[in-house]
């Protein structure tokens, strides 16, 4: 009873969080190496060395920061990633939280991520971090609607807001084929929620690290870990709602999900390395003028299919 309801789910989430974040760091370095970009040290050891180094450094202090928010923000972001991972079903029975409204809860994780990332930059009381924070609000309020319409689209054929039901509804045809606009739009949301690559408006290099520009030592380690973990949580959700989750022949369900999560991560990290960062104004225009109408089309498509 205790094992099945408390220990096993917690263990699954923590394992996925730790191994997943490490895998993101290694994969990103391997991709950088394959593309001929400079990288120091071995791809497998460098993330660990970097983490250990950050852990031994002292945490930077700015003038009169909002201490509570500044120190809590990385942990809250990590917690949001953990909530996201807790919703991902690894098989029909192995799911940490099989909530009846798990799709909506993932939506609130995305919405709360905006708040947390904003607070991370705002509370440092430093100009570049502040600019990163306000940039991210513009991005976060733009992608949240796209995400909502895409997620309603996948809930329609399942006639449920539960991730396990969404997976079950893909037994015959995965949503990636059934709703061709869905996955590309959702991947853009994923780059937004983890502010990665082309959508890295919050912590971009033109702001010398943005919201993290004044953060060093263990808080920086927590922030980097949380970003990687959020990417993992997103890939789990994307694999669940578009790539059929645990469904697949021959291999056991959890293994299928891991493979699909790797495929999503690979696509996101490649996009992060290959695509240039968008300027904030252009990014917001693109979101509201092009991508939001496309998500309407996706929803209408899903609705018509559900009716037929």
């Amino acid at each position, binding site marked *: 009873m205790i094992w099945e309801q408390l220990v096993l789910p917690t263990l699954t989430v923590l394992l996925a969080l730790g191994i997943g974040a490490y895998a993101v760091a290694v994969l990103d370095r391997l991709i950088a190496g394959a593309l001929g970009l400079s990288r120091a040290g071995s791809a497998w050891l460098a993330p660990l060395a970097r983490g250990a180094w950050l852990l031994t450094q002292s945490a930077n202090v700015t003038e009169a920061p909002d201490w509570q*928010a500044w120190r809590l923000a990385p942990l809250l972001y990590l917690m949001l990633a953990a909530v996201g991972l807790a919703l991902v079903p690894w098989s029909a029975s192995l799911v940490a939280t099989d909530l*009846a409204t798990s799709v909506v*809860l993932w939506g*609130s994780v995305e919405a709360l991520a905006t708040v947390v990332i904003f607070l991370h930059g705002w509370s440092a009381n430093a100009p570049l971090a502040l600019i990163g924070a306000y940039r991210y*609000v513009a991005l976060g*309020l733009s992608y*949240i609607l796209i995400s909502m319409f895409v997620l309603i689209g996948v809930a329609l054929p399942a006639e*449920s*807001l539960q991730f396990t039901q969404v997976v079950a509804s893909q037994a015959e045809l995965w949503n990636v084929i059934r709703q061709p606009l869905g996955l590309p739009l959702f991947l853009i949301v994923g780059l937004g929620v983890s502010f990665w690559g082309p959508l890295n408006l919050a912590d971009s290099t033109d702001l010398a690290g943005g919201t993290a520009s004044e953060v060093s030592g263990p808080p920086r380690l927590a922030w980097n870990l949380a970003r990687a973990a959020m990417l993992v949580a997103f890939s789990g959700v994307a694999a669940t709602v578009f790539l059929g989750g645990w469904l697949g022949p021959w291999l056991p369900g959890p293994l299928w999900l891991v493979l699909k999560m790797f495929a999503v991560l690979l696509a996101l990290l490649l996009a992060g390395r290959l695509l240039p960062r968008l300027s904030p104004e252009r990014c917001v225009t693109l979101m509201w003028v092009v991508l939001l109408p496309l998500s309407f089309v996706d929803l209408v498509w899903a609705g018509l299919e559900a009716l037929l």
Partner: protein
Amino acid sequence: MNHGIGVDIAFFLLAVLAIYSGWRVFCTDSMVRASFFLLVSFIAVGAIMLLLTAVYLGVAMFFMMAVEMMVMALFMVMFMMNPAGLNPMKMVHQERVAMAVGAVGFMVLGAMALFAEFPERPLPADLEPVAALGRELLGESMLIFESAGIVLLTTMIGVVVLSSHRGRYGGAETGSVPPGLMPGGEPAGQPAQGEDSEGGHQHHHH
């Protein structure tokens, strides 16, 4: 009552969190902090709704309040003369009236909780809260909710139009042009009119 002791403990912890963060809203000196203390309070209430098996309403509370408080903080910062919401400012006004109204409201609600007779109605085993709520919202009550939605939307647009009618540098309809450095001079801080009409680029490649 068929719930465990864990539910009771969670309820009391969340209730304390909701009240404490609600109280902090009025003590803090910052628009941004006040917004997010309010968000914490609402999240605690949403979690209590989850304990009451209102599984959609509780989660929707997280979602709606996260976006709403973010937008509220953003709009306050945009409309107040307080750059980026960093300066301390008083977050309460008309304290006496507010305290009186709060006390009366607390007493009325407290009296209801203490003296009302609540019906003992156990949940039916086959209850699907999400589906039932959906049928209610898009069934008999559809007209009410849809008209309320339209009214709220028009109100929001109207409020923004009215309050942003006059911008920092004059009427919004004439365009926001800063005043000149000299009386009657050219607007300050405008990009120079270059030879390439492709705005934005200030580079010249030689």
